[in-house]
């Protein structure tokens, strides 16, 4: 869920950008390391970035009239690992703002934190945990994708609540308002994304592209 251009007050826009910087820088550092070891990985990662953009541009079938779409968070994190996703995700978010007017430049920092940092890490963590627990792969993937999506939406609601606390009930009330309103679109979307991800992983396994372990670029 992208926060649109100009929706956050200036101070919040700046603050979230500052929060995002270290994660993006770490992603860039990681990228540099990968590229030094394997120069050809650069093209693979770029392809992954393009892929993530396309995923976000494909409308999910569930919620008509909503401006939301799958973030690809779960899949990206499981396939490519979350730290480099922070950088790829940031570039993809920039292009989404410039090409689709999804999100924005002043809200880029906030969107990076929710969609390129928190979402991927949650999805990745759940994926690792479910593998460690020996859950069936489909269950693990569906959980990772769905909850990764939900985590993004929770963070976004919190960001909005921080920016616009309720005059009466403060942050908590505002969080309730934003989370409540956006739940109408985001919860079905997260479930749909979980289901799609399962189809994807099964098809990839069927094509011999994935072993039971995730591939890493």
């Amino acid at each position, binding site marked *: 869920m992208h926060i649109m251009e100009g*929706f956050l007050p200036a101070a919040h826009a700046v603050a979230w950008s500052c929060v995002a910087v270290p994660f993006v820088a770490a992603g860039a550092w990681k990228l540099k390391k990968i590229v030094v070891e394997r120069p050809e990985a650069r093209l693979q990662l770029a392809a992954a970035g393009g892929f993530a953009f396309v995923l976000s541009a494909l409308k999910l079938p569930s919620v008509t009239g909503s401006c939301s779409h799958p973030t690809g968070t779960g899949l990206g994190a499981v396939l490519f690992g979350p730290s480099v996703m922070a950088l790829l995700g940031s570039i993809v978010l920039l292009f989404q703002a410039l090409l689709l007017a999804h999100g924005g430049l002043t809200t880029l920092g906030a969107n990076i934190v929710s969609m390129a940092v928190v979402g991927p890490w949650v999805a990745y963590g759940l994926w690792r945990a479910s593998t460690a627990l020996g859950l069936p792969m489909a269950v693990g993937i569906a959980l990772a994708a769905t909850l990764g999506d939900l985590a993004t939406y929770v963070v976004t609601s919190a960001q909005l609540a921080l920016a616009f606390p309720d005059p009466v009930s403060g942050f908590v009330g505002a969080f309730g308002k934003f989370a409540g309103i956006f739940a109408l679109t985001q919860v079905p979307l997260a479930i749909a994304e979980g289901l799609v991800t399962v189809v994807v992983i099964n098809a990839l396994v069927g094509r011999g592209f994935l072993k039971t372990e995730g591939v890493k670029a």
Partner: protein
Amino acid sequence: MSLAIDRLAQSSRWRRRSTTEKAVLALGLLALALALPPWPGAVLVLLVTWTAALAGARIGWRDWLRLVAAPLGFALTGAAALAVEIGPDGVALARDGGRAALSVILRAAAALSCLLLLAVTTPAPDLVRGARRLGLSPEITEMALLIWRFLFLLLESAIAIRHAQEARLGWRGFRRSIRSLGLLVALLLPRALDRARRLETGLAARGFDGSLPMLSPRQTVSTYFIAATLGLQAAVLGVGLWWS
């Protein structure tokens, strides 16, 4: 394949203006939209950006309105949350009568117009090159430019796959749609990586060793345009501060 904003940017009357000029104009106004109180700051910014886009860069008004309206869904749902309050007696209309909601919408509309002014006059690669000149590391800018190339290639594939699935009655109802989308994504990912592998071979034939040197087009910056832009922005700033 292309996206509406990109098409407009490639064919806009300001396509050949230097990135610096367009960035100073749009980003300066963006900063003003955020910094000034929405009334009258955002209104002034809206006035200037719409004039620049419609009269300056000659973007068709239909295209422009469609773009401006796109993020409306988010703006309205978000503002709805601001128009109500949660108190001990439950949900009630905000005591300011929705003034806060209105000013947020106004500010967002102004800021969005600035973003769109930049986006419909300047192809994204120009901005990435600009960022490189400002010192962003080549690893990141090269990655961004490659992603740019891949996203169009993959978008084209995704649309073709979707058309093929529709021809065979996929994408009809929730279950078929989920399955169709899943198969589409599962076909696209290996193709993306396969494209990367073949591009590597293609570039190796031209001496690829890991870095991607390119000759970027030189642009001359019009001091007149910059001066006029800064003057205009100073005026917006002045009026905005004086009024409030």
